[in-house]
């Protein structure tokens, strides 16, 4: 039996405000993808009320929902950006 994966998913701006934290810890089974992490975040932080398809970054790159995650990955939820 493989070890579960634990991530501290980074939050920014309005997401961090809504969650009251700059990260949220989630645990997903081995072989999980971005979508599984999102589902776990929704359960762990219902106050966050994420949009249907929030942007996610894996290791500083935008990643689709079916991208696999691995131990040590840096995961972040990206609210609609507003630089400039």
């Amino acid at each position, binding site marked *: 039996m493989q070890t579960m994966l634990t991530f501290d998913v980074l939050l*920014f*701006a309005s997401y961090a405000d809504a969650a009251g934290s700059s990260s949220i810890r989630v645990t997903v089974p081995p072989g999980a993808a971005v979508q599984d992490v999102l589902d776990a975040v929704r359960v762990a932080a219902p106050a966050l009320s994420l949009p249907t398809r929030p942007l996610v970054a894996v290791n*500083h790159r935008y990643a689709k929902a079916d991208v696999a995650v691995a131990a040590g990955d840096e995961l972040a939820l*990206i609210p*609609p*950006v*507003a*630089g*400039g």
Partner: protein
Amino acid sequence: MRTALVGKPIDVAAIAAEVVSPEDGALSLFIGTVRNSNQGRAVDAIEYNVYAPMAEREMTALAHEAAAQFGTSHIVIEHRTGYVALGEASVAIAVAHPHRANAMDASRWIIEALKTRVPIWKLEHYTDGTREWVEHGQVPHA
């Protein structure tokens, strides 16, 4: 080519001097500045929240993509972090090229792409003491 997140005021003249090479005949500079109102609300300052390592990666990627598309590596992009006062520059994009059309096209492409992709967020501080995250697509912006 250089991109940077900076915590101090942007030096426009230094960037202009840095980016122009002897073969360039044109320099296009775009400067975003903090304006005193948005959606009819009086603004005091903007506080930029940045996902720094990813923002740096995306700014570098933008510069490389623009270089390939517009034929110049003479590109400098700087974006402020933290509090930026009224009238100060929040972002500067400088592109130099032998010909003006490429320089202007490239700087415009970069600012539009930056506002779509680079993980930076702005918290507007209003003169009435309230604050609000600005989300593109939700409100008009500069």
